[in-house]
């Protein structure tokens, strides 16, 4: 790789002469440096191989030659022997190793008073050392020596640079930042070294001590070094409390001296032309604040706040920025304290009109703090009340103004300041002024602040108010006071914010700069979010047809002197609703023209800008307008192969978020989501899509869920294009799954859809067996299939429709889809009442026997796959399902017979008979539970008529009916959805609801859920997904995480298992059920989960129709069950994958194993170990003694261990 580019990093550190052979050291260098040199030789070799350094014969010859020369030189000049002679430039360059550089530093440090040494250091040694990614701690003594003795500024600057790097190195993995040539873990190397290498722990205290001393040095001549010393100290990792407290001490010590010193009046642009003393003060102020900014925020500390507030009046612009940043961060936490602090050194802003050097400032007396500059950077003027005007700060700094905007926003929105409307309005007014800032960055920040997008914990109401503010409020420029010298400043008419914002955004969209376009699209997206929130909250007065000028005009009439050009006609026009959306000055009109500009931006060649624009369009889409344009834009975009998968999933997640904001748009959004499924099945994540479906279904409410389910099931029509069903769609739906990869992906999506349908059809159709009014007997009468179908569809068209689709999938899909379809049908059969159950039963029978195809021939469309001899090849799979249904029907028949017998004979049920009945009931429940989740307390496998008898038996034998909290369904929140017509049956008797809910919510968090929540929360530290060819690193995970992961990944394993009867959900409810059972199994159903350790028990499904938690609970609480303490542990799941740690197993390592990640453990063959538990093909083992890496315990592959 290196050769291809012609130059390499290694080239950079080429030396003009190779190092002399080791023999020549003796004459010159100290023993220690020789040791160090030898020590690092291996590194040199590895570096070479890394960078693909090629050695030619010629080079080898040259080296020999050079060796001779330098050996000779060494004899002549001991000092220069080992360093790089700079007089031999023309020789072929050879790489200089780290060891050589290190040695040079050691030697040159000793002679740092010589000019030549300094030159060497500055031009050769230090720049080359910078290429290495970290610095060896053993260099520290020499660096410190240089620091004390050398006078050369550049050498010193480098010394501070390297000292800072040694301090900042976290040392844990030798993995510090730097890029360039990788270096080993120095500490580990030093540990291996028998002679006793130098570790960070050895040198850091010395470095800190020396830097501290320098940072405290008050000598004026020294102050430049003082700044650098302080800066280097801030590099120390913030986990080091000792250094941190020292830093606090130094910073506050400096500030105590320089912050309070009365400043003499000087030029307006403080730093220039000031006297020496004030400049030094300003420099120190800068250094101290810059260090303060790097220190952790200290919200409760009044001194911290006080110093930060003082910083606003400092002369140094960077210091002012830092102090504004600190204050704005503090204000986000405690706006009251900040407002008070700002108030108690009552600084004032001044209005300054300015043209380059002609500065006018007008004291806005009182406490008002407003600055306005006509399209110029803000000039802040502040002073302390007892002093005259001293400083005016010229803040060219964009980031400082951004911080000012944030500060103003936090204070003006603070609840804590409700009783001080004056303060709030002052800051609010500054915020609005900043809208006119020449920098887009500042302006956009202000827009975001106004819109209510400030912190990550935004709420809908905040957003809605934000939209209201943006559309209603007026920017009133502060009136130009009479003593203004700048008469050119016109009295300006108050402007509605929305107008300013729109104008600004439109002009930004005309920019050619991609960052500007991207940022503008992002701002529009945020606008859309706030607008959607306003719609959702139902802010009345959201009427967008109103002329915005009417607001400003109203404001005008209040400010009587400003209504120079109010248009009464405008108001009349606006209020008469004739021109809704037409007039240029209505909000709707402005939005329309903005959106026009946004849409044209889709033509940008940058895919990320386009993605942001589409997100903006999704958010700005009004529910009352046509979606066609959005759809066609998205469809057109999706045809572009350049779109990376992550970005597409991001857009899908945006759809999801949009849906959450406006649930009534579910169906339309689902249709858009379907475009993704059809156009780019290979790129989108089935998890994300399924999550979207689920949220839409659950969120659509009782009325919408039928339609939502319909929208989901349309996906099923995709794989073999159904001639009939395609007619209604536009060209958008042309399936593009032509290549095998996306065909496969599409199949996976369909699989997900089928599973989804099976799990949720009953919910969507509100059809449950246990609520069914139809007695089973009547259904048995309708054995005529046609009648049955007719009856079914008339009774519940939604469910009937889903059934038909699933039946078709059971035939026409691929093998996997057929399996899932049959499983889905069984779930529906178990959950539905008659006649659906019977219909499915009948269907399954035919399916098992084959020959159904002729019956449903019109549905049979071959997808090119051989359907198998039996017609479906599903016999093995279906048999147990049919058996369960058989048993249910058989038992129902028996029960009816029994009841008749009893009725005829007029005799009571004996206890034995009842017991038998009850046992049958329980047995059937157990059987049914193997296939899907049913609420045990409600479910009556023997039909409604058995309810009374079972009740009698239960009462007689005091068997607690499993209702209330002990029912897993209740405890996990599922029941609320199943019994949606009834009040939530949670009884707050013994358990903390919050805990229960938090735990239940945890169950709902699949990986996709996490992704959505992170996405919504704006969490972004996650590394981007890289394509398959990139290396996948193994992040260290805790055992809890891994356990959770096995839960979530289980379906992958189950997919091939034909007996697994239910779960093929990407989110694996089956496995979640396992967790439920293992947590709850012991409490009331000892028979359910503990008595049947069959393979089935781990693959049950459950209805998981609970809405995903909108406000994500603390997901990292782990899966711990708050109820666990209550149930008796003895009923635990017998084949729980964990082997109890109380019962360790021993074994030996079969082979050597090298750990591939933090959580793994290296093994040597034959080593004795203790197996703690197994997880997902890995054993967590403990060793008897720590290995070479010092680790005692970790994960090893199961196959590497021989269990004794």
């Amino acid at each position: 790789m290196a050769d291809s580019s012609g130059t390499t990093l290694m080239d950079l550190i080429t030396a003009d002469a190779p190092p002399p052979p080791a023999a020549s050291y003796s004459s010159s260098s100290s023993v220690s440096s020789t040791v160090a040199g030898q020590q690092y030789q291996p590194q040199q070799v590895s570096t070479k191989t890394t960078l693909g350094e090629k050695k030619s014969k010629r080079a080898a010859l040259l080296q020999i030659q050079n060796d001779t020369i330098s050996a000779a030189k060494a004899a002549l000049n001991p000092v220069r022997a080992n360093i790089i002679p700079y007089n031999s430039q023309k020789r072929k360059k050879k790489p200089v190793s780290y060891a050589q550089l290190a040695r040079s530093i050691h030697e040159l440090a000793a002679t740092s008073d010589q000019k030549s040494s300094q030159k060497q250091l500055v031009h050769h040694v230090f720049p080359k050392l910078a290429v290495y990614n970290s610095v060896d701690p053993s260099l520290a003594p020499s660096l410190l020596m240089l620091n004390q003795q050398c006078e050369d500024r550049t050498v010193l600057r480098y010394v501070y640079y390297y000292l800072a790097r040694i301090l900042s190195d976290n040392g844990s993995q030798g993995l510090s930042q730097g890029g360039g040539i990788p270096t080993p873990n120095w500490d580990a190397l030093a540990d291996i070294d028998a002679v006793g290498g130098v570790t960070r722990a050895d040198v850091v205290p010395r470095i800190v001590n020396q830097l501290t001393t320098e940072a405290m040095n008050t000598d004026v001549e020294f102050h430049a070094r003082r700044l650098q010393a302080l800066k280097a100290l801030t590099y120390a990792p913030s986990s080091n409390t000792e250094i941190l407290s020292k830093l606090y001490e130094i910073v506050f010590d400096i500030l105590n001296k320089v912050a309070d010193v009365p400043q003499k009046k000087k030029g307006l642009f403080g730093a220039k032309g000031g006297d020496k003393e004030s400049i030094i003060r300003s420099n120190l102020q800068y250094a101290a604040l810059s260090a303060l900014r790097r220190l952790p925020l200290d919200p409760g500390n009044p001194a911290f706040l006080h110093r930060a507030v003082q910083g606003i009046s400092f002369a140094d612009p960077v210091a002012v920025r830092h102090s504004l940043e600190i204050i704005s961060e503090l204000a986000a936490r405690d706006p009251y304290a900040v407002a008070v602090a700002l108030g108690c050194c009552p600084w004032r802003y001044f209005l300054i009109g300015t043209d380059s050097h002609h500065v006018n400032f007008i004291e806005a007396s009182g406490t008002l703090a407003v600055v306005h500059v006509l399209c110029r950077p803000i000039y802040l003027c502040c002073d302390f009340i007892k002093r005259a005007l001293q400083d005016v700060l010229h803040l060219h700094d964009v980031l400082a103004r951004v911080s000012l905007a944030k500060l103003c926003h936090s204070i003006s929105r603070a609840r804590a300041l409700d009783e001080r409307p004056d303060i709030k309005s002052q800051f609010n007014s500054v915020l609005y002024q900043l809208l006119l800032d020449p920098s887009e960055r500042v302006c956009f920040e202000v827009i975001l602040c106004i819109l209510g997008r400030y912190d990550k914990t935004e709420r809908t109401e905040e957003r809605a108010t934000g939209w209201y503010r943006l559309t209603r409020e007026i920017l009133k420029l502060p009136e130009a006071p009479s003593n203004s010298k700048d008469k050119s400043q016109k009295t300006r008419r108050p402007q509605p914010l929305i107008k300013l914002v729109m104008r600004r955004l439109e002009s930004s969209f005309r920019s050619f700069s991609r960052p500007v376009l991207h940022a503008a699209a992002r701002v529009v997206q945020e606008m859309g979010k706030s607008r959607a929130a306003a719609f959702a909250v139902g802010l009345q007065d959201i009427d967008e047809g109103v002329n915005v000028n009417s607001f400003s005009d109203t404001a005008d009439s209040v400010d009587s002197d400003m209504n120079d050009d109010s248009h009464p006609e405008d108001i009349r026009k606006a209020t008469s609703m004739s021109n809704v959306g037409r007039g240029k000055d209505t909000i709707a009109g402005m939005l329309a023209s903005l959106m026009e500009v946004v849409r044209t931006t889709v033509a940008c060649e940058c895919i990320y800008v386009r993605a942001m624009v589409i997100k903006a369009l999704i958010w700005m889409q009004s529910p009352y307008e046509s979606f066609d344009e959005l759809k066609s834009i998205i469809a057109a975009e999706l045809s572009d192969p350049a779109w990376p998968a992550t970005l597409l999933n991001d857009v899908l997640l945006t759809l999801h978020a949009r849906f959450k904001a406006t649930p009534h748009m579910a169906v339309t959004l689902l249709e858009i989501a379907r475009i993704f499924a059809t156009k780019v099945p290979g790129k989108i994540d089935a998890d994300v899509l399924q999550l979207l479906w689920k949220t839409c279904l659950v969120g659509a409410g009782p009325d919408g869920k039928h339609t939502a389910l319909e929208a989901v099931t349309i996906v099923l029509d995709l794989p073999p294009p159904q001639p009939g069903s395609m007619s209604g769609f536009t060209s958008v739906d042309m399936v593009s799954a032509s290549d095998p990869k996306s065909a496969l992906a599409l199949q996976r999506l369909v699989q997900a859809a089928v599973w989804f349908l099976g799990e949720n059809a009953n919910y969507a159709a509100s059809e449950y067996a246990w609520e069914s009014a139809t007695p089973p007997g009547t259904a048995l009468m309708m054995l005529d299939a046609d009648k049955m179908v007719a009856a079914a569809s008339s009774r519940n068209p939604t469910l009937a429709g889903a059934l038909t689709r699933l039946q078709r999938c059971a035939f026409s899909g691929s093998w996997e889809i057929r399996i899932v379809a049959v499983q889905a049908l069984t779930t529906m059969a178990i959950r539905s009442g008659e006649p659906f159950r019977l219909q499915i039963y009948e269907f399954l029978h035919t399916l098992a026997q084959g020959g159904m195809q002729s019956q449903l021939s019109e549905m049979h469309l071959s997808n090119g796959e051989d359907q198998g001899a039996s017609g479906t090849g599903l016999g093995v799979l279906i048999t147990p399902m049919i058996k369960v249904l058989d048993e249910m029907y058989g038992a129902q028949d028996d029960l009816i017979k029994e009841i008749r017998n009893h009725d005829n004979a007029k005799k009571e049920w004996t206890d034995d008979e009842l017991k038998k009945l009850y046992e049958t009931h329980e047995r059937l429940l157990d059987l049914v539970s193997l296939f899907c989740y049913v609420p045990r307390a409600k479910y009556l496998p023997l039909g409604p008529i058995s309810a009374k008898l079972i009740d009698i038996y239960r009462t007689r034998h005091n068997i607690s009916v499993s209702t209330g909290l002990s029912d897993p369904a209740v405890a996990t929140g599922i029941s609320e959805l199943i019994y949606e017509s009834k009040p939530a049956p949670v009884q707050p008797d013994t358990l903390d609801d919050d805990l229960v809910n938090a735990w239940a919510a945890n169950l709902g968090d699949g990986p996709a859920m996490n992704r959505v929540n992170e996405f919504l929360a704006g969490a972004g530290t996650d590394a981007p997904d890289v394509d398959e060819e990139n290396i996948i690193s193994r992040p260290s995970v805790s055992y809890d995480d891994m356990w959770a992961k096995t839960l979530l990944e289980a379906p992958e394993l189950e997919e091939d298992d034909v007996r697994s009867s239910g779960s093929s959900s990407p989110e694996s409810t089956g496995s979640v059920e396992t967790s439920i059972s293992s947590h709850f199994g012991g409490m009331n159903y000892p028979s359910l989960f503990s008595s049947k350790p069959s393979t089935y028990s781990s693959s049950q499904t459950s209805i998981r129709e609970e809405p995903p938690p909108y406000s994500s609970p603390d997901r990292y609480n782990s899966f711990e069950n708050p109820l666990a303490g209550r149930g008796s542990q003895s009923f635990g799941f017998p084949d729980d994958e964990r082997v109890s740690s109380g019962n360790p197993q021993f074994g030996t390592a079969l082979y050597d194993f090298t750990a591939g990640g933090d959580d793994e453990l290296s093994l040597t063959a034959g080593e004795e170990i203790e197996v703690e538990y197994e997880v997902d093909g890995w054993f967590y083992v403990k060793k008897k003694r720590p290995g070479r890496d010092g680790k005692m315990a970790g994960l090893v592959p199961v196959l590497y261990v021989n269990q004794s």
Partner: protein
Amino acid sequence: MLMAVLISNSVGNILVERFNGVPSEERLHWRSFLVKLGADNLQRASNEELFVASHKSVHIVYTVLGDVCIYIVGKDAYDELALAEVMFVITSLIKDACKKSPTERLFLDKYGKICLCLDEIFWKGIVENTNKERIKRLTRLKPPGEF
């Protein structure tokens, strides 16, 4: 926060990297993600033309300057626009250090100087100096304001 500044050569070897607040296991992902971005987009780009990308709430601005590609990753206050400003400072300082648009050779020759400049532009994830003169003074161990 300024999460990362990466400088690579035209074939994707990382010359300089400065991460902040990025766990070590994620750095690899970032590196390959950024290098891939550059490989996809910077081939025909003109000097200092700004490119933009985003991942979740993280913003990325990158550009090409002579033979080297520069990537900046930031979040929160450091959005595309703020990053573009930082980028401007970095590119102009590199140009100054190399006297012209850098070849890789030139960049490597001035490596030490560039490192010192970067060290003054930002550290610990926070942008520090953006004024060129000031940065130059500080890299020569002179105080920011002189008398």
